[in-house]
Structure formats: structure tokens, C-alpha cells
């Protein structure tokens, strides 16, 4: 496993239950306070999300279709969510006082900071992969996964920013799921717990919907890559 060295929590939680309430009042003065508290929350709730992430990875190993929960799995996930939401109460009170516009801005900032964190760590991650001898299959695919995750989160953040409230709320729910489910895969890799099948399934999903951003690649390597586009042609002959 190559090192990711996350200094910050890459998850961007979204308090689904609390934010489903109507948020009508406008108190712009709360914005910076809430932002600061959410930052603090994200930093300190790492343990809770770590448990949640372990649970998600376990579910993914049992059934690659992550959305095919049993009642038992669902109850366990709910319990974890409620535990996490409990420590969110004090923030939710302040969020209630904000306008929808202010809330959206707040979450866009948060998602944007997740994207920037991943972006910033990419070159160090690449170096670590290049210096590693003897890869597992997860090593050879993880950089592509990483790039697709950055691209998906970045795309969602831009769309949320450009959307009106109702659409933005739906997109924020999607962004929180992407952040949790697909971010968990990176954490599992970082802890050397990621199975190839899980990575392949989640990577296939991400790549079906988004394109990776253009990262700088050595010129000779880039030219070799451009000549490789037809490689999959011999697959799946039936």
C-alpha cells in the first residue's frame, strides 16, 4: 500500500436529518461561526466516521452492490449516523438560523476544501506509488480511482454552487453519499484493508459518470498512453 497520509478528514458530512427542516431565517452573522464549528466538527469526528467507514467497507465486501442493504445493516448504519449526528446538535441549532443561500455557500466551501485537500495530496501519493516495488492490483488502480473521485467531487461542488436551492439540496445529499461511500474506499486502501473487487466495482461506477481531470503526465508517457486507446478491444467476446 502506498501512503496517503491524510492530515485532514476527507469526509464532508451532511446532517441529513437536521437539514431536512425548513431553513428560512436570515442571519448572515452566524456564517463564519458555523463555518468554524463545522471545521472543528469535521476534524474531531474522525473516529465516528472511521467506524462508519469500516462498516461500509465490510458491507461492500459482503455484497458489491452497496445499496442492497439488509434490515440489520441498515439499522447498524442508522445507529452510527445517529451517533455522529448527536455531536452535530450544537451546529444544527446555528444552521437553523441561516438562510438557504448561506447554508449552500457553507457546504460548497466544505466540499471545495475536500477537493483541494485531495488535489494537494495527489503528487505525494503518485511519488509514493512510483517508489513502491511489487504492486497489488489495488496499487495499480488506486491512482485512477483517486483522480475520478477528485473529478466527481469537483463536478458536484460546481453543480451545487450553480444550482437553485431545491436542486442544490438534492445534489448535496448525493455529494455526501459520494464523499462517504467513495471516500471510505480510499481510507480502506490507506489501511491496507481494500479488496480488489470492491475497488473495481466502485471505480467502474465513478468512471461511468465522470471524467478525470487532466493531471500532468510525463510527455513520453502521455504519448505512449495515447497509442493505447484500443487495448480493450479483445475483451468480452461472447
Amino acid at each position, binding site marked *: 500500500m502506498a501512503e496517503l497520509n491524510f492530515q485532514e478528514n476527507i469526509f464532508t458530512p451532511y446532517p441529513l436529518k437536521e437539514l431536512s427542516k425548513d431553513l428560512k431565517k436570515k442571519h448572515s452573522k452566524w456564517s463564519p461561526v458555523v463555518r468554524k464549528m463545522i471545521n472543528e466538527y469535521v476534524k474531531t469526528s474522525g473516529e465516528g466516521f472511521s467506524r462508519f467507514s469500516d462498516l461500509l467497507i465490510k458491507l461492500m465486501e459482503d455484497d458489491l*452492490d452497496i445499496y*442492497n442493504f439488509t434490515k440489520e445493516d441498515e439499522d447498524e448504519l442508522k445507529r452510527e449516523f445517529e451517533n455522529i449526528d448527536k455531536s452535530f446538535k450544537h451546529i444544527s441549532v446555528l444552521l437553523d438560523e441561516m438562510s438557504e443561500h448561506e447554508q449552500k455557500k457553507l457546504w460548497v466551501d466544505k466540499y471545495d476544501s475536500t477537493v483541494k485537500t485531495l488535489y494537494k495530496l495527489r503528487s505525494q501519493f*503518485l511519488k509514493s*506509488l*512510483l517508489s513502491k*516495488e*511489487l*504492486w*497489488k*492490483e489495488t*496499487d*495499480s*488502480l488506486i*491512482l*485512477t480511482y483517486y*483522480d*475520478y473521485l477528485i473529478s466527481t467531487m469537483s463536478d458536484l461542488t460546481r453543480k451545487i454552487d450553480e444550482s437553485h436551492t431545491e436542486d442544490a439540496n*438534492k445534489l448535496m*445529499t448525493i455529494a455526501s453519499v459520494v464523499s462517504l461511500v467513495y471516500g471510505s474506499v480510499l481510507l480502506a486502501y490507506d489501511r491496507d484493508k481494500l479488496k*480488489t473487487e470492491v475497488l*473495481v*466495482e466502485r*471505480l*467502474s*461506477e465513478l*468512471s*461511468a459518470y465522470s*471524467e*478525470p481531470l487532466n493531471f500532468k*503526465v*510525463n510527455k*513520453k*508517457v502521455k*504519448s*505512449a*498512453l*495515447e*497509442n*493505447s*486507446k*484500443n*487495448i*480493450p*478491444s*479483445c*475483451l*468480452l*467476446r*461472447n
Partner: protein
Amino acid sequence: MASANLLDTNVVFDLIYPDRPRYKKALEFYKNFKNLELSIEPKVNIECQRVTVEFIGKFSTDLENFLSHRNQRSKRWDQLNPKQRSDALNDFLNTHSNNNNSHAKDILSFYTYTMKTIRSNLVHLNYIEVKEYLLNLSSELLGNLRQQIFVRFSYIIPYYAIDKEEIIRFIDSLRESILGLDKSFSSSQKEDFNILVSLIQIYTFGDSESRRYDSLLFYTNDENFLKSFNKLKNSDPSLNEKLLDGYLKKALEFISFEKPY
């Protein structure tokens, strides 16, 4: 109401890659349709990506490990001239040629073809550049595949609202009902089963753009899929979950499967 022509993974691959043996036939078939008249749904799109990722992940890992071991045992890759590097790549293929099981044969055929495509580039890259190439290869292939798919086919996403419990219940009971009728879908053909569920969803609830369809035609070259679908169609779904309210039976009546060429 409209009708839709949807494609299976094998037909999508036939149409995108000119080196495939059925490419010419696929192209003739494609010409019978106007631009974007052929569609794919998300499960097929994901399967196309998955097949590519699975094979390329194995290839990149095996090649890196071969070169890494080789560097430890004999002359390092960076000290070899292009001819010697090409010989080393032949050695790599030879290490995979002794296994006779069918999956290993598929892998060897993929590795051989891949090597034919990339050898002339690979021999001019140093060891670190080869590793960078292998790390970026899946990204390049997936990006190209995705682009080809969206240029050639329209995309039909089943209607699915996060807060519509009715739809979620329907899909859950649909899964149980289909699995009750044909166990083979649960073991050997999980992907086919997911595609079928997606098609029934599109027929029953329409797509994400709120379009409804009065019939769906799914083109596939997969004999097993055709066999299982016909078996399912001839079963009696009304014996199962009441919740389905005849939706499944009706959907199966208006969804058909055909070999395209």
C-alpha cells in the same frame, strides 16, 4: 410514449473497437439506426467500465511485478537497449502461457494483444516511466471508452427519486420475485439480473427525464442471457409478491431481447 433500442455490453464493445471480430457486422447493424437511436442504460455502462478495469488492473500489476523481480535478478530494465527490453516483454508473456484453464487463456489473449499494441512505446520508456504509464493506463482507457459511449449512444437512466419509497419497495420486491423464478440469475448472471431489473424499472416508471416507453428492445449476443430471459418470461410471476401488482408480468410482455447480428 416511445420505444427504445438498448444494447448489451458485448454489442457496445463490438461497435467501439474496430479490432473486434464482429466489428463489421456491428457497423452494418449500427447503420440501420439514426444517430443516437441506440441507447444504453447505466448497468451496461458500468459493466463496460468494470470489464476494462478488471483486465487492465491485472495486466498492470503483473507487468510491474515482473519488471520489479527482473530488476532484482538480472540486468536492470534501464540498462537494457530497446531490443533487449522487447525480449524481456516476451519473457513476461511466456510466464503466462503455461496455464491451461479458460480464464488464464482469456488473460493470455488479452496480455498478448495488449503487448502487441504497446510494445513499441514501452521499450522507449525507463522503469519509472513504465510505472507511471501503468498507473495512468486504466484512466486513459476508461476515459476513451466513456467518451466513445456518449458520442455513439443516448443514455437512458431509470427514474429513481431518493425519497420515493414506493419505487425502492418495488425494486426490492422485484429482485426477490425474479430470484424466486430463476435462481441462475443470482449466481452466474448477477450482472444480467441487474440489467434486467434496470430495464423493468425503465419500462414501469420511465426515465430520469420523465419519458415513458411502450416497449423496450434489448440487443445482446449473450446466449445465456437470452435463455434465462425467455425462461423468466414463460414463468408465472403472479405466483409471487402481491406488491408487484402485475407490473412484472406486464413489463416482461413489453420488453424483448434479440441477437443484433
